[in-house]
């Protein structure tokens, strides 16, 4: 069966007055119904931009330069906006990083939820109202009936994000894209929000694309994780395997630079040397090479492609994948539930 979503060689550019920035340099992935996919990378690596490109809501200066985004066998990139609008918010929904600025301050929360319901599902005002209350309840907002007439600024950060989620799932989308949903929140709230998301995935068989720079977030939530660097995927694997046996030096570096509770106190954190790539220049060779401790001449001159390593579900784009002895072997400890699928 064809996957629900199939992205092939998507590339996005931004034209500013001074230069052209290559934000996304050809990414490809498949997404099955009900699957949770994590996309991990530093800020500026192009992960958010990819999501915006898929939905057709890039800022004015952005352009898709090549690629396909096949949703249920239809290429979204070729659809006119009027048809894309039927899909946005309806079949594919998105939530964003900062719930304070991402919600309209002068509309009630209820209004912002019923908007989508009335547009996509054709509900009447009352039907939509009731459904909105149900949704708020579902995402865990107490006294939903009373709060539906409240404005965004009357909610706390975590609550606002729940409102965003309620808004996004209102039309029962097949895919939910969550762009850094927990970054603006406190750690304890983060866990709650991720729980909400996981629950919804299970209940609705909704596919989830979770975009984040935080490895801890994908560890507990995503079945599969893609690591992105400089606009490309450099590694793709089931999350458990990624943490246990990372093959790309960048992934290794990311894992090593996260402080761990079970590390010895004297053990130093190892940040990745160098700075993220400037995305304007056309590059030969591996984009990570300048910061890579394993880099060779080949890395600098030939651009590596994603290739299978070890097993069918583990891909890496590297000429010198990480060796066994260097692997940190991080085991993902399951949280309250039975853990991560895959």
């Amino acid at each position: 069966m064809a996957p629900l979503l199939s992205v092939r060689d998507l590339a996005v550019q931004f034209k500013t007055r001074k230069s052209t920035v290559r934000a996304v340099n050809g990414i490809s992935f498949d997404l099955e119904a009900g699957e949770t996919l994590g996309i991990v990378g530093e800020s500026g690596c192009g992960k958010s931009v990819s999501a915006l490109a898929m939905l057709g809501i890039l800022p004015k200066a952005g352009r898709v330069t090549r690629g396909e985004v096949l949703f249920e066998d239809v290429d979204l990139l070729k659809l006119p906006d009027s048809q894309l609008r039927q899909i946005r918010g309806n079949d594919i929904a998105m939530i964003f990083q900062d719930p304070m600025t991402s919600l309209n301050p002068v509309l009630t929360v209820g209004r912002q939820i019923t908007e989508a319901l009335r547009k996509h599902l054709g509900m009447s005002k009352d039907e939509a109202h009731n459904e909105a209350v149900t949704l708020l309840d579902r995402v865990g907002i107490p006294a939903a009936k009373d709060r539906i007439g409240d404005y965004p600024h009357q909610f706390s950060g975590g609550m606002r994000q729940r409102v965003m989620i309620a808004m996004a799932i209102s039309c029962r989308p097949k895919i939910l894209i969550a762009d850094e949903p927990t970054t603006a929140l406190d750690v304890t709230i983060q866990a709650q929000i991720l729980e909400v998301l996981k629950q919804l995935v299970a209940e609705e068989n909704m596919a989830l694309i979770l975009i984040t720079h935080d490895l801890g977030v994908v560890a507990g939530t995503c079945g599969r994780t893609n690591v992105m660097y400089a606009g490309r995927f450099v590694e793709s694997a089931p999350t458990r395997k990624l943490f246990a046996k990372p093959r790309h030096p960048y992934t290794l570096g990311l894992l090593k630079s996260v402080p761990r509770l079970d590390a010895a106190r004297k053990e130093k954190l190892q940040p990745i040397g160098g700075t993220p790539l400037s995305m304007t220049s056309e590059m030969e060779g591996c984009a990570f090479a300048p910061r890579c401790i394993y880099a060779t001449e080949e890395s600098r001159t030939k651009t590596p492609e994603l290739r299978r390593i070890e097993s069918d579900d583990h891909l890496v784009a590297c000429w010198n994948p990480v060796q066994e002895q260097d692997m940190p072997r991080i085991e993902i400890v399951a949280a309250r539930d039975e853990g991560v699928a895959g």
Partner: protein
Amino acid sequence: MLNYALRRALLTIPILVGLSIIVFAFVRALPGGPEDALLGERGTDEQEAQIREELGLNKPIYVQYGLYMKNVLSGNLGVSSNTRQPITEELKLRFPATFELAIAAMLFAILIGVPLGFIAAKRYQGVLDNASLILSLIGISFPVFFLALLLKYVFAIKLGLLPTIGRLDITRSLEHPTNFYVLDSIIAGDPAALWDTLRHLVLPAVALGTIPLAIIARVTRAAVLDVTSADYVRTAKAKGLDPRVVDRRHILKNAMLPVITIVGLWAGLLLTGAVLTETVFAWPGVGSWMLEAIRFRDYAVLQGGILFFAVLIVFVNLLVDISYAFLDPRIRYQ
């Protein structure tokens, strides 16, 4: 919300008191003393003595101020030294004329300025955008009276399309229950009069409203630009909403907030403009009244007029404050 309104209203009191003191002091500071000022040169000795009694000019200054405030608050603004008519009566005739003009000017400015600013923002850096910017800059660089003169010259004198002066054709008669000519002609069921009134309103309203139009267009444009790049607009788009809905419900609703604050500034702008425009078009409003008062050194009228204006402006600002809270829920629930 009522709470908020009350609080804001209370805050205006010190300003109003301050204003009354200033106006009070102003007349007292004029060369020649208040008797000369308020009576004019034609005052007889008798009248001067009477005024001294009335105003308590022999009494200490704070008593004088008290008497003054008592008069003002009971609606007695004194008598014009020029016409010997009570000022409040004259005000009742003059104010509607200016008010009508001001409303016409505001409508002109809003109905053209807001869409202009909106479209300019939507076509950011397009031809219309740049043109509107240049035009609005030119607009605020024009002295009102120059613009009024030019308009009068071109449209009334040279082209003869519109009347040159006044509110109504001299030969036409109309009952004036409200003294708002537009309303009066509607009440009287006289369409010809209505048309005539409107024709007379056009030029002065355009002259008066041009600067506010320029300002509104710029502020709207800036606000729309600001809002369009906001995250919640991105969210609205991500929900698959119709672009027109996004424009209306998400962009405009938020962009209008700063525009409304600007409206508060208008009261002052329109008043100043009125003084200048009414002269050019012989419009019998408060503006030209003030001008005559200046020319004829009718300080009683000036005193009453300035006080009236200032109070009006303070109230308009208060209204704007309150309506802002009404529109922006963030302020309401402070």
